[in-house]
């Protein structure tokens, strides 16, 4: 029972972590809470359903399920990244020198726009995801890990390892860190700030797209407002780990997933969605910089 809840929590948590990374990376660079980020995840889930449905119709899924899923992930990442890129250019870039509240309002506007855009084009009812995996899975110690759970945890872990290597090793990754530390100085060494910001939105949106496809497969249905609660929970995960910190977002996401999984089974499943917010309130009261975050230093 305990092990089962841990597995379930890990599955959910690795998805939260993927979404939380998008919040934290954008915050690290622009000090903006990108409230439209949850909608990118929702778009990813929708496109995942549409593409997998299409691949089933043309018979690709029965020919090779792995190929269909990889193709779905790649296309969804490209689609969502171009959304993220465009949103930044249209809704945030013109407001870069505006007071901090303005881009935040703009982000909420984009979020409302995307929800309604999807509702109008895809309908207000739930869309059901094709059941592609049947009941496959492994069992041990009376705990069941479905094939899908295993895949979600593995994909999320692999993506995060790649992201970590990218940020710590590559020239562009180091430039992202440099911009997060001192934007003016980064431009004085010749880093194109606009380009780094675009790359950050592209990466964050790509991660949300992967999360969207995986969650849609896991729960089997999507609707136009799943981005809201997933977004708020991932945001909580980012704050829990320390907003702006990449390892913090990974850690916070997984921790939040575990708390939700364990809370739902041992305390009450009625309050499943409330745990995230209880945690958010506790963190903001006791350690507002987050578990892995540093208290912001006074800049001279």
């Amino acid at each position, binding site marked *: 029972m305990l092990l089962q809840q841990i597995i379930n929590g890990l599955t959910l948590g690795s998805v939260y972590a993927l979404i939380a990374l998008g919040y934290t990376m954008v915050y690290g660079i622009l000090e903006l809470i990108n409230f439209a980020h949850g909608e990118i995840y929702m778009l990813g889930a929708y496109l995942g359903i549409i593409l997998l449905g299409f691949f089933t119709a043309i018979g690709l899924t029965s020919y090779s399920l792995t190929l269909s899923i990889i193709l779905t992930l790649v296309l969804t990442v490209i689609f969502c990244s171009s959304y993220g890129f465009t949103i930044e250019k249209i809704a945030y870039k013109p407001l870069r020198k505006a007071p901090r509240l303005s881009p935040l309002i703009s982000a909420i506007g984009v979020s409302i726009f995307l929800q309604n855009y999807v509702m109008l084009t895809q309908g207000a009812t739930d869309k059901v995801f094709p059941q592609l995996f049947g009941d496959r899975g492994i069992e041990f110690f009376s705990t069941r890990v479905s094939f899908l759970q295993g895949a979600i945890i593995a994909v999320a872990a692999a993506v995060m390892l790649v992201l970590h290597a990218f940020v710590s090793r590559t020239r562009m990754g*180091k430039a992202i860190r*440099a911009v997060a530390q001192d934007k003016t*100085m980064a*431009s*004085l*060494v*010749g880093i194109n700030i606009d380009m780094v910001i675009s790359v950050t939105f592209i990466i964050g949106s790509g991660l949300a797209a992967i999360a969207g496809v995986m969650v849609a497969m896991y729960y089997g249905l999507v609707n136009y407002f799943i981005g809201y609660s997933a977004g708020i929970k991932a945001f909580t995960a980012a704050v829990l780990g320390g907003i702006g910190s990449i390892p913090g977002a990974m850690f916070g996401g997984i921790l939040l997933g575990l708390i939700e999984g364990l809370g739902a089974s041992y305390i009450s499943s009625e309050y499943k969605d409330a745990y995230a917010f209880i945690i958010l309130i506790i963190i903001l009261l006791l350690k507002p910089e987050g578990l892995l975050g540093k208290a912001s230093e006074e800049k001279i």
Partner: protein
Amino acid sequence: MLRLERVHTFYGPIEALRGIDIHIERGEIVSLIGSNGAGKSTCLMTISGILHPAGGRVVFKGDDLTGASPHAIVRMGISQVPEGRRIFPKLTVFENLEMGAFLRRGNFGELLEYVYRLFPVLKERARQYGGTLSGGEQQMLAIARALMSRPDVLLLDEPSLGLAPIMVSRIFRTIEEINKEGVTVLLVEQNARAALKLSHRGYVIESGAISLHGNSDELLHNEKVRHAYLGE
């Protein structure tokens, strides 16, 4: 080589530069001296494209830089060591140098060897976070980082600020050495005596306007400069 023509720059609502003219020839060290808030840093930030002039032009090697983006200006060959050094604190010394070479204007390995020769301590500290260095080491790293883009013109903002006298003379000797290797230097300083001794020519800036300019020797002996900036 680098010319500012009647440049006006606003810093918020304040007109920080009120039509200044400065020219720097290839191979020179030119110092810009003045008191706090006279517009020295604004002048460098305008050249680097962080601030955009409201009037006048900045011309570099015949090209108009006015309105160009900061990274384009670095690509053209102007590099700045800003006031307060602004090391990336959570990047290692080596990564700070890598960021200095972001645009790959020269051979990375050769440039790295060159700056390690200028400042051997940076090689020892290569794996340390920039934020853990002492003030003097940070100043060396800031200069080394700026040199990693192989600039034609190096803009230095208060390199002596907050450093022990022995470190100041070391930094100034290194600036002279860098200049002898062919890098043109614009040096902004409050330490007017040291700056004028090092430079070929100097400008005095007062409330956003150039009040005096001439050979450094002349300025060192100028009655007004001696009184206002050399404390005599």
